[in-house]
């Protein structure tokens, strides 16, 4: 089948936002599904429109590589944020829950595989501890 970018992206995001496989992750976040957001929403928050409760999971779709014949790889990344007083302690307990939410066959028509987890380093825009976890969805046509 042709590469269905919107469906694969939505399916990946929905797992944490509302899917059964992501329920343990939502339980560990600051305010359940409300704390699962698209990454570009981070820019919208301010004093009058505060950021959802941390730990917060922000999704950003990454690059797509390959050609249709030999398959495509779609890179997907979750960014976890927490309040400064917790440093990376709570983020580090959520990461294994996210890994467990994405077994290889969780998404139709693609193999899901963990690529890696970034080092502990703050997001200087918001001065919050953050770590990212990257997956690849490999699609074969």
């Amino acid at each position, binding site marked *: 089948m042709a590469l269905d970018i919107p469906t694969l992206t939505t399916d990946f995001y929905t797992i944490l936002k509302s899917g059964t496989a992501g329920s343990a992750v939502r339980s560990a976040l600051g305010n359940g599904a409300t704390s699962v957001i698209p990454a570009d929403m*981070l*820019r919208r928050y301010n004093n009058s429109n505060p950021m959802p409760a941390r730990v917060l999971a922000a999704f*950003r779709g990454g*690059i797509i*590589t390959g050609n249709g014949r030999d398959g495509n790889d779609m890179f997907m*990344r979750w*960014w976890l944020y927490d309040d400064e007083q917790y440093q990376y302690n709570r983020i580090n307990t959520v990461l294994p829950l996210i890994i467990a939410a994405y077994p290889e066959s969780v998404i139709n028509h693609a193999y899901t595989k963990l690529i890696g987890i970034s080092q502990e380093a*703050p997001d200087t*825009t918001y001065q919050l501890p953050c770590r990212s976890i*990257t997956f690849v969805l490999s699609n074969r046509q």
Partner: protein
Amino acid sequence: MASVTTDIKGVLAGLDQMMKRMSDGIDQGLNAGANLIEATDKETEAYLGMSGATRASSTAYVIGNGKDGSAEVSAGYQAAEAALTGFTGHEGRAQKTDSGITLQSSERGIILTSFTDYAQALEIENAGAKAHLGPSLLSKAKVVTGFVATSVKQKLA
């Protein structure tokens, strides 16, 4: 009872030569891969840049098998320094720090980096909105694997 003596020195010498050719092929493929990855990152549209220091200092180099990238690191750092000299748009500075990567004796790899003290922030801020090093590396990873395989095959032919 008759006995048979087999001299395997020739076989061992042949295996040594094969291993050397494979090693040369790997180096050749990785060098080509590093050039491709560096060119990819220098053309990235993930960020615009202000001083040009990040783009100018973007460097991909091979490590392992006796290579430590010291010459490439020096050149990359100098490129960042040159771009930031006299620039007053922000307070960023050229920087080089140990990668912290330690390879096993048999391992080789490619490092992609840039030499400013705000390079890490660029990869992280706003949930990686301007991240470019990871995407540049990932976008060419399979191609580089192909380079290595082809080079090894050519060396063994």
